[in-house]
């Protein structure tokens, strides 16, 4: 290895370390702030460690602190029912993901493995949705949900995305087209019908790409902000993303309880971070895989 190559590698490593630091540092900063005393923080804002370490912000965020305790550490009166918002997010993202991946898999099977009249036409029509940005259907869908009386219900939040996803269908069909015919043909010779083939053979063979889609859909839905913002204005169904934004907006601008806000943020991001710890490797490969497809 000559000198210029060594130099090149050092520069590359330096670059990578800087990029990683910028990527990861905000996560550390959430934690550091969430464990600080909100009053004390203003006296030492550049301390890299929590200032006057306390669990207070988490207590405030979870609604466990008394008003006196909150006031002593610079908390505002703003409250957030994190447990409820967490539950709402789980229901919203969970149900939507289950439905959309399930229905997409059924459709993908029909498009990939069955011969029927009109198949290619129907597939082509459904695929047009791939390039229409969601912005255009959001407002009319809101009006539709309002007409159906589904505002402020899980139904209203979930229905528009539950049945149809052009990307999911396209992605799963691509995979199913590549499956070999042998097992399927053997089953047909044994007298299995198309439904039996679908549920007993093709879907079990497609578990890996379905898991990929489940993960990606769950993350996107969990983080979605615009649609829940349109169709909910009530705490009882409000998911985490929305609850956080409301929490910030309901705090007084002048003396924001940053420590409490960061604690709430951390609790909100925690499920995704757990998902990351468990599925991180799979996720990285999935993203690459969706790109190549």
């Amino acid at each position, binding site marked *: 290895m000559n000198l210029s190559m060594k130099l090149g590698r050092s520069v590359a490593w330096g670059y990578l370390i800087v990029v990683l630091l910028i990527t990861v540092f905000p996560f550390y900063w959430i934690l550091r702030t969430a464990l600080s005393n909100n009053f004390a923080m203003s006296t030492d804002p550049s301390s890299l460690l929590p200032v006057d370490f306390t669990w207070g912000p988490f207590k405030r965020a979870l609604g466990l602190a008394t008003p006196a305790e909150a006031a002593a550490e610079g908390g505002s009166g703003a409250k957030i029912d994190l447990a409820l918002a967490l539950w709402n997010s789980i229901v919203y993202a969970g149900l939507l993901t289950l439905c959309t991946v399930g229905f997409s898999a059924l459709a993908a099977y029909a498009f990939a493995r069955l011969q029927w009249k009109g198949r290619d036409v129907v597939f082509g029509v459904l695929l047009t949705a791939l390039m229409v940005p969601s912005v255009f259907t959001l407002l009319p869908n809101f009006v539709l949900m309002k007409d159906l009386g589904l505002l402020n219900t899980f139904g209203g939040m979930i229905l528009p995305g539950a049945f149809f996803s052009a990307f999911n269908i396209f992605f799963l069909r691509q995979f199913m087209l590549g499956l070999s*015919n042998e097992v399927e043909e053997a089953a047909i010779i044994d007298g299995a019908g198309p439904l039996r083939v679908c549920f007993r053979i093709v879907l079990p063979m497609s578990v890996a790409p379905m898991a990929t889609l489940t993960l990606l859909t769950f993350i996107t839905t969990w983080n979605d902000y615009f649609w829940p913002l349109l169709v909910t204005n009530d705490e009882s169904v409000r998911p985490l993303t929305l609850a956080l*934004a409301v929490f910030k907006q309901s705090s007084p601008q002048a003396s924001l309880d940053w420590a409490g806000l960061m604690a709430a943020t951390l609790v909100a991001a925690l499920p995704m971070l757990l998902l990351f710890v468990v599925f991180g490797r799979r996720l990285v490969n999935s993203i690459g895989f969706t790109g190549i497809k």
Partner: protein
Amino acid sequence: MVTTVQDSSAHVVRGPATTAPPPTARRRKGPASRRHDTWVAWLLVAPAVLGFGVFFAYPMLRGVYLSFTEFHILTPPVWTGLQNVQELIDDGRFWHSLGVTAYFVVLSVVLGVGVSLVTAVVLHRLGVGTTVRGLMILPFLISGVVTALVWTWMLDPQLGIVNQLITWIFGEPVMFFGSGGWAVPTLAALNVWKSMGYNAVLIFAGLQTIPASIYEAGRIDGASEWQMFRSLTLPLLRPILVMVVILNVISATQVFDIVQVSTKGGPADASLVLQMYIYDKAFGQFDFGYAATMSLALFLLLVTVTFTQLRMARAGESDTN
């Protein structure tokens, strides 16, 4: 009107699809057609077709219709013809927000794809493992709301850690969200921070498909690292780069959450992106008809931009192959 919209979007669909294996109807050598397949097939696609019709096609047509009406939610829409279009043309705030959006898109796509490309190449050339790529996608996992909250805090003029550092070096803080000149670049930087890792992983996957033997051949011919990047990596990566650029343009054009949580379009409309303005019209002033007109304009704009990008990408293909 509607048909042209659908035609062009159908056309656009075929673009990215060309990176995938070719249409497979012919490739299929499944069991011979059985008649009872047909009703089972329709049964299986029924939920998807229903969802497409009720929550995609119908709202889309309705959106086009509402664009030409006066509609305030509580009373039925009233057909007003081209009045909204006229209003749109005369609406200085609309054109301003279009400019803001374009500025945001250009900044975040150029910067975002540039940094992602460099990062992907560095990751690839250094042979770094999955763990590092994993850390890079961390921001992809959190919502725009969380992104906006954390950075608003870190960039706070008085107490934010970034401004502490800036004050220490330059003597005075920067009003990242509070000044007209900084607001959009700051939002673009947030967007880059959030999407960089995801893009880098996509591009990295593209790099892995390039056979190592090509680089060996290049090295034997005495090509430098930079020459190999320019004349081997970039051309071979073109399909995936085109896809990444288009995906980023589409998502950046629709940016909303980070803006709504951090600046709300301010100060003095400096960061009023189109989606923010549409939201404000529809849910702040309940002017749904006009909001629909702006959505339609945004949609047509996106279709045109995507289509042009694909055309340009294809036009450039011949000289590299």
